[in-house]
């Protein structure tokens, strides 16, 4: 396909691909599963190897050189991430394992202290299980009630009745910024403002937004924001919880142990200031350092450019896949979403579709995408999902298209 460079390539994708080891070699994979986990940039791996090879040590308490170096690198990563999401202070960034742990931390520490029997927690039907199950468990513990913003057939949030859903009983609104299934970019700023007007606290699941769009936590004015390193060119094993300072400072500890204390006696302890209070035990040191470098990398390229690139690809993918007979594409139009396309081919189980695509070197996800309530909404058990990132090309879309046709040839013979 010949394309005008300026029109279709705001990113120099060829150069970017060189930063990701997996695309080296003659027949690179068409990796269309970045919404599950992205590739990791070479500079991130180098930063982690640098730690392991030359200043491997524990942090915080060490008085020798390499431990001071490790502590500085770990705290430096916190600063970078704070800047990346426009947090006011580095201490508002808590390192966790992943988005899931970040949300559970809030559900336990803030939730147990602030949610009671008569309170309501407002979610949406398009939440990932990680932003649903922790609230189910909190509701079980406290007797609170879960309520849901519905999803329209087009895959947008049904916000007409937001006013009825938000009452003075609403204590928490926990919503995803970008749906991992539909790609829908939700108007989280508006929802946050409305939630605040009834005094509710707002948590944004930013697992699919921080890697793909510019996200400014202060501008969004959300109270908590959660995301994962492994979806944003970083390593596995590290995630982030951002919180407003007043909230974090009032929150009781979640996990107890080393580093989160001020002073320990046999029967009771006093606790460290945030963020240390929420980072019990030896943290994921190499991983946090790696994530700091992932953030550097993304900042250098620019999240606006990343988003624009994904827009081009998703436009093209919609156009191309729509040509296929018997395809159902879920979710809104390209211009209203991020780089995700979820679909089904009539008469073909998504597992089989993914299996045939795999034989052609195309990696897509098939299943419920940890969003069973959304699947129930659409009346399906599973779908196939292709998701894109800064290193994907138009050719990847062509390979997806070709593989889908191959699957139809092979498997849809019963039809027709």
């Amino acid at each position: 396909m010949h394309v005008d460079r300026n029109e279709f390539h705001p990113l120099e994708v060829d150069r970017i691909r060189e930063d990701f080891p997996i695309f080296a070699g003659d027949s690179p994979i068409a990796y269309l599963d970045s919404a599950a986990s992205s590739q990791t940039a070479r500079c991130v791996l180098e930063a982690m190897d640098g730690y392991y090879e030359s200043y491997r040590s524990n942090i915080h308490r060490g008085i020798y050189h390499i431990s001071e170096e490790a502590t500085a690198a770990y705290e430096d990563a916190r600063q970078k991430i704070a800047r990346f999401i426009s947090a006011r202070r580095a201490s508002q960034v808590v390192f966790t394992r992943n988005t899931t742990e970040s949300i559970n931390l809030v559900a336990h520490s803030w939730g147990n202290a602030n949610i009671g029997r008569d309170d309501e927690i407002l979610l949406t039907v398009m939440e990932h299980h990680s932003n649903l199950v922790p609230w189910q468990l909190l509701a079980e513990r406290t007797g609170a009630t879960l309520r849901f913003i519905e999803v329209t057939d087009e895959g947008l949030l049904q916000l007409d009745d937001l006013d009825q859903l938000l009452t003075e009983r609403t204590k928490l609104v926990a919503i995803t910024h970008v749906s991992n299934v539909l790609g829908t970019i939700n108007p989280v700023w508006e929802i946050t403002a409305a939630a605040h007007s009834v005094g509710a606290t707002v948590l944004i699941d930013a697992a699919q937004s921080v890697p793909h769009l510019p996200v400014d936590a202060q501008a969004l004015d959300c109270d908590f924001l959660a995301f994962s390193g492994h979806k944003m060119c970083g390593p596995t094993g590290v995630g982030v919880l951002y919180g407003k300072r007043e909230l974090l400072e009032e929150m009781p500890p979640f996990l107890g142990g080393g580093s989160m204390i001020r002073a320990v006696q046999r029967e009771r302890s006093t606790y460290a200031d945030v963020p240390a209070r929420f980072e019990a035990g030896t943290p994921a040191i190499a991983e946090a350092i790696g994530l700091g470098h992932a953030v550097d990398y993304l900042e250098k390229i620019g999240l606006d450019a990343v988003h624009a690139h994904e827009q081009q690809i998703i436009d093209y993918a919609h156009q191309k896949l729509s040509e296929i007979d018997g395809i159902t594409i879920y979710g809104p139009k390209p211009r209203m979403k991020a780089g995700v396309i979820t679909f089904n081919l009539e008469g073909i189980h998504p597992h089989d579709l993914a299996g045939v695509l795999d034989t052609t070197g195309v990696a897509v996800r098939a299943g419920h995408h940890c969003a069973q309530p959304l699947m129930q909404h659409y009346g399906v058990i599973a779908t196939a999902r292709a998701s894109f990132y800064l290193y994907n090309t138009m050719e990847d879309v062509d390979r997806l298209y070709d593989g889908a046709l191959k699957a139809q040839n092979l498997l849809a013979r019963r039809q027709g």
Partner: protein
Amino acid sequence: MNIYEEDILDHYENPSNYGTLEKPDISYEEDNPLCGDQIRMDLEVEDGVIKDVRFSGHGCTISQAAASMLTEEVKGQALDDVKKLSKDDILEMLGIPLGPVRLKCGLLALKVLKAGAYGIKGWPGEEDDEEE
């Protein structure tokens, strides 16, 4: 290593022993909630031997082809021999290696059959293969 071998596709498209029995001696059904695959097995048993077998349900090629192949295999076998069938037997029938996700699809029919043979709750569970 292509998992869409003709043999598997044939069983998928023209499954053996597809359907139900009118008066099964044993009937058991289970689904895989992750992908919605669903298998039901009906058995006619006489003196501990499987006289007739039918399967029904829906799902991906692997789960349906495995069910079809398995019914061919066990018809005429003693119920006690069915209890001894293992993961490896299924992989041999299918003739291809399976990754961890597809393995669950491939083993669903066996799981249902064994649960039926053991009388559902008496079955020690598939996980027991793991024991050292």
